[in-house]
């Protein structure tokens, strides 16, 4: 039913129009009377000439070539592809937010500022960190921001340290972010359990080490059981602990990085906090820091003129008055009873990591999500995420080799080594899953597992869906025993199969050109 679609450029026809602008209602002068010839373009941009029905059909058809959360399950390890609540979209699309200009005076923006302020309070509670910034645009951006804070903190102490320690199981953005900030990266090998080797860490965490970047639970889905020891080692050596919080879903309501001794944590709102992935973005990577690092957070910071302790609250009356539960303890207070502002005045701040205040649209979705969840919801998310992962793990370990751990947190990693020998690689298994109507898991990551297949179900999948996925995986295991070529030749049911990536890289064709 769904065929490939021509390029929009192949549908262009001279004179076709789609969106028509209102006519010019001021005297329409000759352009050269207003601007000198030499600032005008010589050649017109060859943009499409198409009608509205062309555009609508083109993108509607293209959309049908995509797999998405709204159609089925994504067992994508490390990506936390949970359901994206529709109400979050409604909130973010409210005109009161979408049509706000970032430079409107704060008096005109008290609603959004109080939302951001409240969101910071909630995230502090969930994570155990002391303060958050919402500037980072994604996880990797949060990592960079974290590295810059570490550097600033150490320099303030008059220390020049050059090294960041990163486990070999870490995500690629970790070393990339450290390097981007001018640090040398020292990779530390995981031990036989797939965890950080304390003794090795003792050795390598020298006085020249600025910090260790951990991921907890790590990318094998294992909780670093020596986490307290790890933090102690870092701190005893005058260093810091950065925690990649991309895997926070497993910890919601279960444990808090702040309590572990983590100094900096980034959160992926587009993972743990249900904002949609949008085909690759936008996400958001707010970072939380310990008390000591607060002064170094990027500017501006959102503040309230009146300090507010969460404990004080009676929340239920607020809900009834449709007031945000954190801003206005007393419903009789008007919206402006507390004044929110943007504060630039932090001499030790690292500066800005982007223009304006960050991905506000994602914050609105996250806030909506967290208002819905509430305390019990947050506990249940962590619990059912871990439950679902272990359920899958147990059902699959009879058929696939799972090298590390007996239980897991939010995800686990299969090694298809065995299957590879029989003629079907991790990639082949991934592709075959597409034929069975599922998205593929993450493959070949983490790098420490040969033929890695990384599976994360999240809490939003039902038992029935998990069972169906297990059935497909078992079917594939059998296929590999009996007819591995059917797995190697998959997928057969998709609009295309196995693009030639070598050709794509060798003869790059990165834009359409008129023949």
């Amino acid at each position, binding site marked *: 039913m769904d065929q490939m679609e021509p*390029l929009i450029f192949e549908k262009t026809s001279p004179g076709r*129009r*789609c*969106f028509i*602008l209102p006519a010019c*209602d001021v*005297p*329409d002068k000759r352009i050269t009377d*207003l601007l000198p010839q030499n*600032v005008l373009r010589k050649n*017109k941009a060859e*943009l499409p000439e198409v009608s509205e029905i062309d*555009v609508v059909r083109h993108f509607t058809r293209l959309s049908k*070539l*995509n*797999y998405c959360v*709204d159609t089925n399950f994504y067992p994508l390890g490390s990506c936390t592809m949970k359901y994206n609540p529709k109400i979050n979209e409604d*909130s973010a699309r409210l*005109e009161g937010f*979408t049509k706000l200009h970032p*430079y409107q005076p704060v008096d005109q*923006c008290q*609603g959004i500022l109080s939302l951001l302020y409240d969101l910071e309070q909630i995230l502090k509670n969930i994570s155990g960190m002391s303060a958050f910034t919402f500037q980072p*645009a*994604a996880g990797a951006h949060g990592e960079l921001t974290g590295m810059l804070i570490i*550097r600033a903190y150490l320099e303030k102490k008059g220390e020049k340290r050059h090294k960041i320690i990163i486990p070999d199981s870490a995500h*690629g953005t970790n*070393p990339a972010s450290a*390097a*981007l*900030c*001018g640090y040398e990266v020292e990779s530390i090998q995981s031990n036989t359990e797939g965890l950080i080797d304390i003794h090795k860490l003792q050795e390598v965490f020298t006085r020249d080490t600025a910090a260790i970047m951990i991921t907890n639970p790590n990318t094998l889905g294992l909780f670093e059981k020596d986490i307290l020891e790890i933090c102690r080692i870092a701190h005893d050596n005058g260093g810091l602990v950065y925690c990649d919080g991309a895997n926070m879903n497993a910890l919601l309501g279960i444990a808090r990085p702040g309590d572990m001794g983590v100094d900096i944590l980034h959160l992926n709102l*587009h993972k743990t906090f249900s904002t949609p*992935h*949008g*085909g690759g*973005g*936008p996400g958001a990577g707010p970072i939380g820091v310990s008390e000591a690092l607060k002064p170094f957070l990027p500017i501006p910071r959102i503040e309230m003129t009146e300090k507010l302790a*969460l404990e004080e609250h009676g929340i239920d009356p607020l809900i009834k008055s*449709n007031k*945000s539960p954190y801003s206005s303890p007393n419903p009789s207070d008007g919206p402006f009873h507390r004044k929110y502002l943007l504060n630039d005045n932090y001499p030790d701040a690292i500066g*800005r*990591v982007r*223009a*304006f205040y*960050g991905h506000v649209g994602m914050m609105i979705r996250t806030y*909506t999500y967290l*208002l819905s969840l509430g305390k019990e919801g947050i506990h249940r*998310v962590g619990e059912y995420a871990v*439950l679902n992962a*272990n359920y899958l793990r147990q059902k699959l370990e009879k058929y696939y080799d799972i090298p590390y751990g007996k239980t897991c947190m939010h995800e686990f990693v299969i090694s298809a080594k065995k299957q590879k020998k029989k003629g079907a690689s991790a990639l082949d298994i991934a592709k075959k899953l597409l034929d069975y109507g599922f*998205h593929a898991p993450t493959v070949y990551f983490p790098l420490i597992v040969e033929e890695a297949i990384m599976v994360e179900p999240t809490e939003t*999948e039902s038992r029935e869906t998990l069972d169906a996925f297990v059935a497909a995986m078992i079917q594939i295991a059998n296929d590999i025993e009996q007819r591995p070529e059917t797995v190697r030749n998959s997928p057969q049911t998709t*609009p*295309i*199969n*196995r*693009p030639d*990536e070598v050709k794509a890289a060798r003869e790059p064709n*990165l834009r359409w050109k008129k023949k």
Partner: protein
Amino acid sequence: MDYIPNTQYDKEIMMKEMGISSFEALLKDIPRTLREFSLPLHQGLSEPQVFNILKNLGEENINTNKCISFLGAGAYEHYIPSIVDHLASRSEFYTCYTPYQPEVSQGTLQVIYEYQTLMCELTGMDISNASLYDGSTALAEAALLAIHLKEKNKIICSRAIHPEYRQVLKTYVKGLHTEIVEIDVPEGTMDMDQLEKALDDKTAAVLVQSPNFFGCIEDMEAISGITHKYDTLFVACVNPISLGLLKPPGEYSADIAVGEAQVLGNYLNYGGPYLGFFTIKKDLLRRMPGRIAGETVDRNGRRCFALTLQAREQHIRRQKATSNICTNQALLALRACIYLCALGKKGMEELANLNIQKSHYAYERLRTLNNFRLVLKKPFFHEFVLKTHDHIRIGSINEYLLKKGIIGGLELSQWYPEMDNCMLLCITETKTKTSIDRFVAELAQISTTM
């Protein structure tokens, strides 16, 4: 409301099948001490309750729909065709993951490829990536590219580049021992002599924005010429809307052209998410940060699309990657792609013209006011600087205007102390003649009353 399908009943069945009696058994690796904490949080709420709260929060803001706004300065109000929202709201686009599985992601992949093509056409550059976070980080990435490519650690940039972009640049190069030299902009555009003096063999790149922060159009051709006398990259930061008529970076041989593409069908959103675009000359391809989609063929020889040249990226190259970016702004690039198709060849030209006509109309009308002065020199695009008579504070003018349902211009002294009593005004196609006239009339009022 927690969106968890499994019930207590499901949980028990699952635990039974797993042969565990308590859920805690799965958490044995977590030190006890870490399990003891309290969450002082609210009760979960139902959808109607949550949405009421959010609606009220939204209404506590004064949005640019309720007022006539003349704010610009890097975030711009433009008409957004209805179809952009309709098409971008298809869940196949917004709930799908990064297209690492091309067989089930051809929609997203073709969109990226089309977006790359459109950005190349608009900028006149050879290659575009799939997007970066925003204009400011795109500019910073351009500087980093130059620093690493040229192995030089001096960056020259105009002081008329968006002040926050320059702050981001400074933050990004911390730790790379890089010197940033800012060139003055006496009458709103770059001081050429200063530039010539500043340029040397140690300069990795010259960064210029045009139309610049003040709306002035820089002489990019000249600056490019001067820059290329050295082994130095010329980086242009441009507004895509302006390129409907203004000379594109490709025509003045910029090496890199970056900018903020929020203007292409994306909302103001109080500052984000926005869309950074990054386009280059062919020879820089292997240095390009971020994802790129390319055309290829599948096993049956059918044309298809896939992410390509990933050897540049962090998940392959780790610390040696060209950038650390992973998640980008795909959904906003989709919107930009739809927007450019909707406006099309003729539409983008008309749009640029409308912005120029209306801003110049406003400029001429304001010129007639005493008590106000237009301080910088032409040519400009859709923004310009208005200076008030010394004793009138911008703040009080804007308060007065707000009462009249008008959001005034941006006060400049916070970033440019020498420009006290100056406001930056922006007039896009969304301002009707009537509203411009009203604005001018109100200012006239002020000049007399204050």
